[in-house]
């Protein structure tokens, strides 16, 4: 009886309708599989793209050498000429440019890149490069946060600080952080100092404004309720304004951390190149593009999973945001006595007559 099934089961494209869990999972997997499949098709189906020819035997063509790549059009033209002159044609197979390695090569590079020792003894291993990048991000973001978060909370709470700080910060955040690269090197040297400073500049000004706005959005009724309960001054900030906004501040921080990552590559070019940027550049120079892709993908994977982790951590830190808690534990009875027994019997009687179902829409 298909017409009795819920609409979501029949219709993949229901407007604003949540899909059943299995379909959601399927689509999530597909969202990764589709781009990978496109990449695989371009890499493994010879007649799609493959603009170059890898020469296995140059034949009598003068300027072809074994193991080199030449445009497919040149290859055809040369062989036509060879055929006309009854000379030996060149042999080869079609390939994609070296900057588009096939998926399996990149997948292999995920493991081999960690195991391959650096070419020069003073160069870092991949895991050292990654570690260096993560520590740069951490310090930039940490230093920005210990100043930016309190300042944002002050701006959001007191109009005084908002008026005093925000106009300048609003102006400053339009200055692109990389523009300060040379200045940072001049002040802080060529090591990690300027890199951390650029991540700091890229994060801090946004952070103050975003958190100030979040704190301003705290429901004024909660603040008023707290005031009528005797809260004032610093206690009001600490016991009401901060807890009321902490969850949204946490979400802001997750988004800001994502921005900090986008500044990483620019920051690492400043001064002596370091971290994952150094690794990527070095591998590109050696034309190990599979390693380049693997390293770029690693940044994505680290970002993605650290955000998943922070999301999970959020549900641990802020239990009141777990909307479904009562449903799983079923602490709130949906029927039966919800009312203290002290209520006059006549009252309850009259109510039951009016409408049989008592206050049953709990936790709605």
């Amino acid at each position: 009886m298909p017409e009795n099934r819920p609409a979501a089961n029949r219709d993949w494209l229901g407007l604003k309708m949540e899909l059943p869990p299995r379909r959601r999972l399927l689509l999530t997997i597909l969202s990764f599989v589709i781009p990978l499949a496109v990449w695989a098709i371009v890499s493994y189906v010879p007649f799609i793209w493959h603009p170059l020819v890898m020469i296995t035997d140059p034949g009598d063509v003068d300027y072809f050498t074994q193991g080199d790549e030449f445009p497919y059009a040149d290859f055809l033209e040369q062989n036509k000429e060879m055929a006309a002159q009854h000379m030996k044609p060149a042999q080869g197979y079609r390939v994609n440019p070296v900057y588009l390695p096939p998926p399996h090569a990149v997948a292999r590079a995920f493991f081999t890149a960690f195991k391959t020792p650096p070419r020069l003894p003073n160069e870092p291993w991949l895991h050292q490069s990654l570690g260096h990048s993560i520590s740069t991000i951490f310090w930039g973001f940490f230093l920005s946060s210990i100043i930016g978060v309190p300042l944002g909370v002050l701006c959001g709470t007191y109009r005084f600080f908002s008026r005093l700080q925000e106009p300048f910060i609003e102006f400053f955040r339009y200055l692109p952080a990389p523009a300060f690269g040379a200045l940072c090197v001049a002040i802080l040297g060529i090591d990690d100092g300027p890199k951390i400073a650029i991540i700091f500049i890229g994060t801090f000004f946004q952070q103050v404004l975003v958190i100030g706005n979040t704190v301003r959005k705290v429901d004024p009724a909660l603040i008023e309720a707290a005031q009528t309960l005797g809260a004032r001054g610093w206690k009001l900030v600490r016991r009401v304004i901060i807890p009321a906004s902490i969850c949204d501040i946490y979400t802001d921080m997750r988004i800001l951390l994502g921005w900090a990552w986008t500044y990483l590559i620019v920051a690492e070019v400043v001064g002596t190149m370091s971290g994952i940027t150094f690794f990527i550049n070095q591998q590109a120079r050696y034309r190990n593009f599979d390693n380049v892709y693997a390293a770029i993908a690693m940044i994505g994977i680290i970002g993605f999973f650290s955000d998943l982790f922070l999301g999970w951590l959020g549900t641990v830190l802020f239990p009141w945001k777990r909307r479904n808690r009562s449903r799983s534990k079923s602490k709130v009875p949906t029927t039966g006595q919800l009312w203290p027994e002290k209520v006059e019997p006549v009252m309850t009687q009259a109510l039951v007559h009016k409408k049989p179902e008592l206050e049953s829409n709990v936790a709605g």
Partner: protein
Amino acid sequence: MSLAEIKLPDYRELAPEVAERFQKIRQRPVILSVQGLEKSFGPVNDRHCVFSDISLDIHRREFICVIGASGCGKSTLIRIVAGLDDSTGGAIMLDGHGISGPGPDRGMVFQGYTLFPWLTVKRNVMFGLEMGGGSHSTCETEARQWLEIVGLSKFEDSYPHELSGGMKQRVAIARALANKPRILIMDEPFAALDAQTRCQMQAYLLQVWKKVDVTILFITHDLDEAAYLSDRILVMGANPGRVMEFIDNPIPRPRSVRQFISPEFLALKNRLEELIHPSFGAEDDEEKIPVIKMTEAGDEVE
């Protein structure tokens, strides 16, 4: 048959026991005294007056309801009493002293519950006690007592979002009462609840009020609610906001829903309707709306 056609007693006629009760109330000390209160805003040449010359005295353990058409400034009035807004004239005295800003001596229950979502039910009730400087364990003991009174002991570790609207409002009442305020101000506290939960909450509030030493100032736009709960009803008019009448409620206590059809109730209700909706009972009060008839002849529904 309209309400006006039924022979109703005068709402000012008080039964002897009701009159005697009012006598007793008037001998009690005045908790809240509002004298010539005025609120207006805007520049001097374009001044908008929300209300002016509001005066009232509320005695200890009285239950006062404030009703009025929308725009009469009843919410502004209690926000000023609570200290959340400033007046532009007149004086408010609580126990003979002036007030400045919000404080725990004037508890408030809002229509929107305003429970702190990050605190459990128990911690919500403890909040005011902790602000008053109590130790954690004494606050906890007291909070548990208040939760017992509102019948929510089982939910002390739940978060507000896990409760129904009526339960949330009971927590809010417990939270306000835990501070032992001199006066409990309630701003349309049951307006967001469905009809039968509202009825339960009203009966329930009366029980709490009987047992707890608290004076209540209750804003509502529900005339039945005002008649059912109050000792006296302050009726406010709009444009500009003013006191139209301060009515002694003639309905004897204890109250029950049976009284909803008693002559005193109907007389009072009739008077309130007259004040709030001046065209009430008139023949032409049904506004004609310009809609072309789109049904066939003989297909009338009324």
